[in-house]
């Protein structure tokens, strides 16, 4: 089943949409993404009858002449944080019947959350919108999914794009190796914001960028004289779109090239997502690449 954007936009709420997308994805996968368990050392405990003998730490016995048993914390396969750009520009939609970039971001994040939690991976969320940065730390508990979905449901676009600050926050908060999934239009006035974000990769985090764009932003299909209003501040300009179309397309093309080049240089996975694209296909392509490329 392919879920086109129009069909998806008719589903009310992120939960429904995310679930629909997830089911589309699952039916498209050929085998389970579940990759087996791994365990991680938590603490030592003095041996007591009934403990698993195979868990006795013989090296500790050598040192202390006492029996200690290793205790292990049962861990998920993965810790993933979805960083959603909740700025006002993400609220743009050229087609009134379609979805905004933020709705697409929320749907993708929700679907990814379903998938992660279903395979006992931990999923977290960070939303940057203006001055506010909301964060839900990653957990693998089933109940955690509802929390994430509720948060996604409540997203409203506002404020300016502040990817730079989000990058700082994540760098500070993510102590363990994680997958950071950025969902943004990357319209940040700070030229080095994206680079800062991609520096997470240097901290051994896995980073993937979903670059969300409205088709109108890509093709600039306007004809009549228009007063363009900024969605994040009070900038405005009256132009004849036909007169500047060529120049706009050149500027925007250069921006896209720059983003793509920067991601490639930082070994970051880049996925351009148009709001009228079938999202299950987007995710399938993404997951397929990860299965093949990163295992």
């Amino acid at each position, binding site marked *: 089943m392919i879920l086109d954007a129009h069909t998806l936009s008719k589903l009310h709420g992120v939960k429904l949409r995310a679930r629909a997308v997830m089911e589309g994805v699952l039916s498209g996968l050929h085998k389970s993404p579940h990759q087996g368990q791994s365990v991680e050392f938590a603490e030592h405990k003095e041996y007591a009858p009934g403990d698993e003998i195979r868990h006795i730490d013989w090296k500790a016995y050598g040192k202390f002449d006492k029996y200690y048993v290793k205790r292990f914390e049962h861990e998920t396969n993965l810790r993933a944080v979805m960083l959603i750009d909740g700025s006002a520009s993400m609220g743009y939609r050229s087609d009134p019947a379609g979805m905004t970039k933020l709705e697409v971001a929320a749907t993708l994040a929700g679907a990814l959350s379903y998938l992660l939690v279903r395979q006992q991976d931990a999923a977290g969320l960070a939303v940057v919108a203006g001055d506010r940065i909301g964060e839900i730390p990653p957990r693998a508990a089933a109940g955690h999914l509802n929390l994430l979905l509720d948060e996604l449901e409540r997203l409203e676009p506002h404020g300016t794009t502040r990817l730079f600050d989000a990058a700082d926050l994540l760098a500070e908060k993510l102590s363990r190796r994680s997958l950071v999934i950025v969902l943004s239009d990357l*319209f940040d006035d700070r030229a080095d914001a994206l680079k800062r974000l991609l520096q997470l990769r240097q901290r051994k985090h896995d980073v993937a960028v979903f670059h969300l764009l409205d088709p109108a932003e890509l093709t600039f299909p306007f004809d*009549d004289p228009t007063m363009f209003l900024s969605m994040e501040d009070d900038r405005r300009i009256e132009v004849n779109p036909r007169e500047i179309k060529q120049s706009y397309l050149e500027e925007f093309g250069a921006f896209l090239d720059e983003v793509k080049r920067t991601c490639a240089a930082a070994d970051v996975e880049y996925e351009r997502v148009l709001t009228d694209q079938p999202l299950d296909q987007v995710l399938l392509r993404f997951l397929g690449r990860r299965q093949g490329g990163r295992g």
Partner: protein
Amino acid sequence: MTFAQPLFLLGALAALIPLLVHLFDRRRPRPLPFGAIAFVLRSQRRTASRLKLRRLLLYALRTLILLAIPIALARPQFRRDAQAAALARGPAATSIVLDASLSMRYDTGQGTLFEKGRELARAALRDLRAEEPANVVVCAPNAQPPGAPLFDRGRLRSIIDDAKPTFQPADLNRCLELAARSLEESPLAAKRIVLISDFTQNAFHLEAPAPTVKGPNGEPLRPEVILRDAAGGQKALPNRAIVDLRIEPALQAGPRTFQFTVTARNFSDEAMNDVEASLRLGDQTVSKGFLELPAHGTAQKVLTWRFEDGGTFRGAVALSGDGLREDDVRPFVLQVPKEIRALVVNGAPSSVRYRDEAFFVDAALSSQGSPVRESMRDAAAAFREDFGQYDLLYLLNVAAPPPDVAAKLVAFVENGGGLFISMGDHVEPEAWNQALGAILPRPLRLVKTAAVPGEEEAAAHAAKLGQIDLGHPIFSPFTGQAGEGLVSARFYKYMLLEANGEKGQGAQILATFDDGAPAFALARRGKGRVVLFTSTVDRDWSDLAIRTSFLPLIQRTSSFLTGSLEEREEMRVRVGGTVTLRPEGNQQPAEIRAPSGEAVTHKANEDGTITTGPALEPGVYEVRDGRGQAIASLTFAAVLDPAESDLTRIQMDALESWFGEATVKHGDGANGDEPRVPLWTWLIAAAAAAFFFEGVLLRK
């Protein structure tokens, strides 16, 4: 400027539309919140200046389109100031004076000035208002009064169309006077003269009064004068011309060799280098040379050509052409003498060559370049000869011939033969006077001895030549130092002649001794000529024979006696002049044809000569007899007046003052030039081009 359809000009208000649209188009643009506004702002900044220029260009092009179309529909026309003034003054009787002088043949590269002048005349005719009568004076040398101004535009137009430039100067003063007189025949109060000319200085005589017309009360009034310059206001019309051509025999280069001395003048302010001068005979160029012509200066070039045979030759000398080609060519007709057959009668032969009476004459006649083929006989043998086979007889110290020979000699001379007689011890005056008195220039009297050769101070007492007629063709070369060999000759004895008697009438003394006694006497007898030299041609009575002047003197005398010396002079007449032809023998001219083939009027005179002309065009004129056969010896050339080659332009200030400044208007070249393509066509083309470029700009 005026408009044929002025109402269309209201449409020009449409040109305000782009401005009004700009000012009042306050449509509110659709507001649109847009995520990628940063890119819109950046694009706008990048293209702002280009867009501003583009908008300005679009505005200008649209205004041009909306302005050009209604103006084109209104059919704009340029009008001269004079016309505007005329409209204010009321109708005027108009006389159009069109200069048809030679200088109007000047070709500027875009046609001749006359063609331009004719266009201006047509334009002047078109510009007349319907109620203005007019006439046309084509200002040729023989311009006739044009008659009263009339309204028949077709007739006036055909006069202009039929007008042709002449080859002569035109007297514009006279033509203006004719125009002024003709205007008096019109009842209209206002009078106007339109003068179309190249305004060369030579065409006007500003010292004469300017033309006037009679006013209502008989008082002289100056007519309005409109000057239209066919030369389009050019400061100068550079021109060069052949102003003279001298054709002379170059005996030193051989018989029948002539030198053509071309004199060319540069009438312009700049020097002309490497001007080619060429000699053409028939259609063939036989000799070439180059001239360096300084500004306002002259230069000469000598071209030499040897004719293989005698006869009549027609040809031309030409310079490489300029604007006025007519004066760069000088036609000529040249009679090249045939070989002269001469019989030398030696009255005192000697076995010692240098003592022979004919020794020095023989040497002179047989020298290189001599036109004479001589036969020498002693008197007895010579008198048995048939004189008819000779052109010229030399009687050198010959005793008086018997009566039958004398009669033969008289007949020979009267039929055109040439006779040279020199004196000596064998000449008895009485016998000679009796035998040949009919043809002698003057009767012989007696021998005078000035000194005896060999005696002391003989040279001092010897006679010298006194008066010499240097204007005569025989003596014309002996001017200046060249005459030294003549005046230094000593004469010990010479024959005195009787004073002019009845028989001596018509004799011409060409040179005398210092005592006044004739040395050379010339007489024309019948069709022939006789030259009497009163001393000897050997060294018995004089030392002339050993002087440097002897050889050319004998050769020129030979040529003169056979009539070939004068005939070598170029036969020519100025264009506009008449020529008198002298038919010889049984020549009976019946018609004369101009170079263009047109017949030229001619009239027979009582003395047998024929007056023909005027010769209206330059070139060679052919004379034919009743059977249509050309009479070569009467062919003549007509040449241009070099004064008309001076194309120096008159000072317009001076001309205006002459006419009266208040009455002069300029119909200058700009106004006189009716554009070949009407103005409205250019406007439509401009609108179309603007429309095209607007489309191009909009597509960008």
